[in-house]
């Protein structure tokens, strides 16, 4: 976890060196957004808080996926495994070992990161779709492992985090508390993404993304970089999983290792713009908000409409919203049709 402690310093140094206003602007705006989110909390009903907390959860998940999938270009199709490992570690630690939630939360992050290192070393040698499917295999396999370790995990019947009575190690946070917790995780993930994007670490990852052999020739220790990134990504995802487990109280293997969650992370990143910090943030907020809106208003048709909207968005903005905006500003070419022309066969 040395990256975590080292990075803020590097980030600060490069921040001070560059054009101050341009460098600090996004951080300031981020702060405004954070204040807005905090102010918003007072305006929401309890249940709405939970809905918005889910949006924050996906912001953190999308940012985490973006580290390995967007920056490094390794499309982890089994990212949900860290979510599941983190969630189950917390549930088991709290119910069997009587750890407090905060202790379990932190440990869950490290356990997930460790897990990422263990699977990352052999799997990150694979490229492209092969890496994708191998990680998918790990996630599906872990679900079965958790399902079969009945004594520890409760198997398919699920495991319940104690939240009432004497067994409760940490009082349930309530919708207020989880709003703040997931907001905190979202902020953490955006900061990590922002720091990675702007320092040497991030440039090394982009180099790996574009041409791994060339990056190695430049003296980048590609294996170490990739494994570290995977661990960092796993760490954040594990934290989110742990928080989710506590929020849900009872968790089940099918949901904690649900491939749909991975797919959502990927979609949010790609629609927003992969390899950027803003992209996953926008993508997660937009998609989660949209799907929730559709679900509430079109009870029978919502997935159908969502599918259609995704298709239209993909056809019009294949490079993601943020990357499109950047290209369009540079070339003064805002026409979406021209954009389609660029990518069609």
């Amino acid at each position, binding site marked *: 976890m040395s990256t975590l402690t080292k990075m803020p310093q590097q980030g600060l140094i490069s921040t001070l060196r560059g054009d101050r206003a341009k460098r600090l602007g996004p951080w300031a705006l981020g702060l405004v957004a954070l204040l807005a989110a905090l102010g918003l909390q007072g305006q929401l009903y309890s249940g709405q808080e939970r809905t918005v907390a889910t949006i924050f959860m996906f912001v953190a998940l999308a940012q985490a996926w973006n580290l390995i999938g967007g920056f490094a270009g390794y499309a982890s199709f089994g990212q949900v495994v860290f979510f599941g490992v983190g969630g189950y570690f917390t549930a088991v630690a709290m119910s069997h070992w009587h750890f407090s939630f905060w202790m379990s939360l932190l440990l869950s992050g490290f356990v997930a990161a460790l897990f990422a290192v263990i699977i990352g070393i052999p799997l990150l040698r694979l490229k492209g779709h092969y890496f994708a499917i191998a990680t998918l295999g790990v996630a599906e396999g872990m679900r079965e492992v958790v399902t079969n370790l009945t004594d520890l995990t409760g198997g398919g019947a699920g495991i319940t985090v104690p939240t009432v009575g004497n067994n409760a190690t940490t009082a349930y946070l309530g919708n207020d508390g989880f709003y703040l917790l997931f907001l905190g995780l979202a902020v953490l993930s955006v900061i990590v993404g922002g720091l990675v994007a702007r320092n040497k670490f991030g440039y090394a990852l982009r180099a790996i993304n574009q041409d791994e052999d060339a990056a190695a020739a430049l003296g980048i220790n590609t294996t170490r970089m990739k494994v570290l990134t995977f661990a960092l990504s796993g760490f954040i995802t594990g934290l989110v999983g742990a928080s989710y487990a506590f929020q849900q109280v009872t968790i089940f293997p099918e949901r904690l290792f649900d491939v749909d969650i991975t797919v959502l992370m990927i979609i949010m990143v*790609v629609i927003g713009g992969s390899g950027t910090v803003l992209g996953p943030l926008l993508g997660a907020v937009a998609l989660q908000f949209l799907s929730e809106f559709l679900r509430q208003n079109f009870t029978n048709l919502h997935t159908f409409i969502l599918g259609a909207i995704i298709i239209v968005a993909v056809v019009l903005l294949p490079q993601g919203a943020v990357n499109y905006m950047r290209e369009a500003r540079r070339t003064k070419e805002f026409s979406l049709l021209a954009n389609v022309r660029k990518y069609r*066969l």
Partner: protein
Amino acid sequence: MSGFLQATVYGLLQGGLLALVAVGFSLVWGVMNVVNLAHGGFVILGAYVGWEMHEWFGLDPFLGMFVSAAVLFVFGYVLQRFLINLVINGPIFITLLLTFGLDLMIVQGMNLVFSADYRSIKTSYASNSLAFGSVRVPLGRLLAFALAVAITVLLVAVVNRTRTGLSILATGMDRGAARLMGIRARHVYALTFGIAAGLAGMAGAMIGTVGTFNPSAAASFTLMSFVVAVLGGLGNMYGALVGGLVIGLVQAWGGQYLPGTWVNALAFLVLIVVLIFRPTGLVGRAFYAARQEV
């Protein structure tokens, strides 16, 4: 011992069916580098076409599957020609996203049109079985297996021996060069996707005969196709067949000798081990694995 033999036979039959499910998925991925998340949706759609044919015209599913194939071929061709071709030059994962959107629409569309009732295409013979000593060979699955193998062989012949097939291969290897040679890439891509969808539809009709289906079964077939295609390896038309048979056997044997549902973990363990030690899949070609994809 008879348990082992029975598991082996059943695993092989199951594997053949899986191979047919996955062969189109593997073809599309190999030629166009598109991972089609709507593949399972095509399979189930094929099952519904087969079911309708049987219900309304009394058509035997092993004939009805050709109707499924034809319907799905047209559907696939149109989809690729007018939709997926629009983004084929975009970043790779964009096609993944597009097909995910398609999958949502197809699955929910089937839910609305056919309802979520569980169905099965009933025949008088598919559940009967031939007995060899204590080992039973179910007729429906045997037929499906034979067809799966035959269709794979036929596909290989078409791809390797016909002009169309060669143009598919050529486009898959180097689209630019292929276009310079006068190959219409748009049409070839659409054709490839159509063939893949048609094969999925065929597999669907068979699955509808030997098993039960409803729209939500689509996801598991996409997942299985993924596993089978990678296990076998891309770039070799027999890859899906090999991958399917291996998965079928692993699951049958694992189910026989492992307690609980550990067998499911085993299938994925085999997948991961194969990928680590032989990343091109069991019979795939190195070119496809080395290709810069993401």
